[in-house]
């Protein structure tokens, strides 16, 4: 799905106001197939505000450079303001694809390094929703869910290794009357794998070896959901509360009761997303897609926003 090209973005800096154009809610309503998730009564957690700067270094090799950069979107969890994209010679077009807002950056015959800087301010609220029970499904899914149920590179949901693991785990519980696919997938991902920092990140290897990294457990959970007929998708986000190391992080969204709800099995986030996470993109896709370049590297800078006030005397 390609959104109308926004001519205003062809300049190097995205006016902040444009950030709200064409938003697709991350917690969006779909077909109401069951009780919709509702906001749980949560302790009042204040929102926080952070400025996020992502610097991407693209090394050209003389080819036509193509870079896809996810742009943050406002939703119930986060409000994005003061958004700028400094492209330094790259042509830019904003598109919506699979619910992601993407900056498509191109540079013909790019030689040498170029920097792209993407900056925004996010007001982030903690999210907590009840997750309605969702039965294991049989038969063909609704058209709009197909994309989030198919096996993909990291979510090999129809692999016999995955199906065997899930069936072996779920069958006794289903025979005992349980039929909540999300709970079954959650319990399997959380209990059947040893959580290790250096564990496997791929679902098949994790299932063979029995250990998985946090990324691997998130992928396992999303994979088991798809196997059970529950639409799911990995999410890329930035952890603004992390002080050291890589700030790029992942969790999972499951479609329950017609809405996408945040979950993370390794971090025990059942329908919860703390206010330290800013969502950037979803789906089993690279964080930054690139073609025709030698290499791409990126780094983050997180800061508290500085507001200019006027002294009235």
């Amino acid at each position, binding site marked *: 799905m390609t959104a109308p090209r926004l001519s205003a973005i062809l300049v190097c800096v995205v006016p902040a106001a444009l950030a709200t154009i064409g938003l697709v809610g991350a917690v969006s309503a779909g077909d109401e197939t069951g009780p919709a998730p509702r906001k749980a009564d949560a302790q009042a957690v204040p929102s926080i505000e952070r400025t996020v700067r992502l610097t991407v270094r693209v090394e050209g090799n003389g080819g036509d450079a193509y870079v896809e950069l996810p742009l943050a979107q406002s939703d119930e969890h986060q409000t994005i303001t003061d958004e700028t994209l400094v492209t330094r010679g790259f042509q830019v077009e904003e598109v919506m694809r699979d619910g992601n807002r993407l900056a498509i950056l191109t540079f013909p015959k790019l030689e040498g390094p170029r920097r792209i800087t993407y900056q925004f301010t996010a007001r982030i609220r903690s999210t907590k929703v009840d997750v309605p029970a969702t039965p294991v499904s049989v038969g063909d899914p609704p058209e709009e869910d197909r994309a989030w149920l198919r096996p993909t590179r990291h979510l090999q949901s129809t692999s016999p290794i995955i199906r065997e693991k899930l069936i072996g785990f779920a069958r006794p519980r289903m025979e005992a009357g349980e039929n909540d696919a999300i709970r079954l997938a959650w319990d399997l991902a959380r209990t059947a794998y040893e959580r290790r920092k250096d564990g496997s990140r791929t679902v098949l290897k994790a299932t063979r070896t029995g250990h998985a990294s946090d990324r691997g457990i998130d992928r396992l959970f999303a994979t088991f959901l798809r196997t*059970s007929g529950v639409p799911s998708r990995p999410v890329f986000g930035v952890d603004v509360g992390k002080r050291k190391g890589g700030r790029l992080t992942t969790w999972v969204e499951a479609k329950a009761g017609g809405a996408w709800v945040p979950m993370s099995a390794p971090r025990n986030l059942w329908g919860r997303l703390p206010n330290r996470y800013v969502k950037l993109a979803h789906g089993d896709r690279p964080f930054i897609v690139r073609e025709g370049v030698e290499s791409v590297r990126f780094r983050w800078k997180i800061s508290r926003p500085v507001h200019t006030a006027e002294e009235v005397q």
Partner: protein
Amino acid sequence: MSLRISARPLVGGAARALALVLLLTAGPARAALEADVVLVYGSSWRQVLPAYAAAAKAPEAGSPAVARLPPVILWTTGEERWTEDVLRRLEPKKVVSLGPPGASGARLEIPGEVRHIEATDERMGSVLANAAFDEGDAPPAVYVAGGSGLGPALAAAALAAADRAPLLLAGARLHVTVREAGALARKLGAKEIVVVGEGDATALAAAGGRRVKVLSGDEALAAYAARARSRHLVLASPADATGPFSPPKLSLLSVPYALGKGAALSWVDGSSPEEVAAALESRGEGPYDFVTIIGDHLAVPMRHVEDIDQVAAGKADPRIHKVPPFVDPDGAASDRAVGRLAALDAYDLSRWVARLLHDVSDRQDGKGALVLANADHKFILGEAISRTTSAELANAGVRVESFYREEITPELIRKELPGHGLVLWEGHPRDLTLDDDALPAPESSLPPATFFLQGCYTLDRSDPYLLIERGATSVIGTYMAVYSASGSGFARAFLSSQLHEGETAGEALASARNYLLAIVELKKRRGHKDWRKTLRAALSFDLWGDPTAPLSVRARRPRKAAVTASLRGDRISMRIPASRLPRVEAGPYNAEIRPGAQLSALYDVDESKPGRRLVELFFAKVKLPPELGDDPQITAPYDESTYAWVWAPRTRKLSLLVHEAAVPKGAGRRDVTLRFQVHPGGKVSK
């Protein structure tokens, strides 16, 4: 140009009749769908199976096919990239695009002239029958798949396509469909209606107004097998299309594959593949020298064995391994060429089957071989053997690019993977396709290549599925841990069989397995203790691909002649040529061997020379006549520790392995002929 036919859900007979009239006037009369490619949106068998019957044409003269079917490619949202890729390769001029109402609006770039046909699951059979057949076509029958089971429907589709006859799929009311079949039969000039499933022929004949024959699913398969008359059997499990937890529906693709290969077709539901093949052969079908299994290991199960090496070592909780079908866990010789088509879903498999049956190569495809060995610096012995395999390929005129150790980088893999017809990975397994987590390389489509992933558990990783998704035609890998010498020896034996004897992928796999099994026998004769690891390697390898496929790269007659063997009377002569491949070295190991010679973990240590010289092994296969019995014994004027064999009674093939110590001292660098005597043993047929 785009022609659109739509048969949305109909209400009442008049509306249905009107829709049919519109359909019949939509295009010119034709005996089958005029299509270079048939696209089907979704994977509903009620959409797919009638398409097989409607698109089938008579096979070309000399073709083994039972019917000539254009590529039938299933696709859905998310499959656009690879579907468009295979369409680009197929370069169709006419495409028929099928799907439920509204499907043709789905976004897919389709080359050529496109004809859209939309109908509900219930109506697609009828719509296609009327679109593809016309008065005077006079098919032998109109087929009706009765009941709700997929097995009989698949059998009916195969039979209908073989007869170039229309197929209707009955719903809950069989007699209604038979009545419709009767009207169709009258229009087309078909003399009878064949119902596959259950039903009362007399009552159905009254409904159809035509003679009705009722065949069970098994009878339909037998009738189809009689048309195929092949030594190739396709096994699938229709149960893989129903139930919870995302069944992959791979059995849907068993029909076009069997039709295209001219192979018989059967189901394994509740039985093992070995039992099914034996049962068919016992009733006079076959014999089946080639078996293609369509389905993953949940649909078509594999035997499980405890790790033989760990059991011998007394480990209390040994690993459990899967053993490929038709492989004997105790090490009996392999006697069938077996391959498995296991993809993540029917969409991937439909493209794979299209690649296997139709030429999808394009001029951009690399034709040579890529060898990547010992990327982790751990398998020096395997690297030494791998270097001789590269030399063997080069000797047969194959363009080879080989990389070792630190030369193998993610960038190199990314760059080289799409450019070759054969990729041999040897060493510690890794997923070549996954790359970095956040910044993976662009997903390149692949040429119709063979990927030989020689390492531990390589078929239990992500790569095989992703390689197939992107365009590979074969993946050879393992279900167990494999030591590098056995693994590299297996790969070398596999490629030698293809290069020097023209064996297909399945035959070469069986030959390489028998080579390792003969090594086990030789090691036992020589008193080596570690033969169990070799046996485990022999049981490990499996082919995901077409067992009848030839070598995937261009080769020519070898520059230097290879080891050969022949039988005259009851004597086997093995000719060992003088000329050798270039010497290779890796760490302390070195080898300078003759073309077609094999290697394993056996080496000589000569105190006067540095390093460890790998021992040459000579391996040959000979078919023995019945008069040499069903348990022949071999003797030779050489020490008994220098030769061993394995024997496959079903094919009467003897695989003979000879240690270089059997070559007379002083032979120097000249051709040598070794002679072996075959003694009749067991039951002897005169």
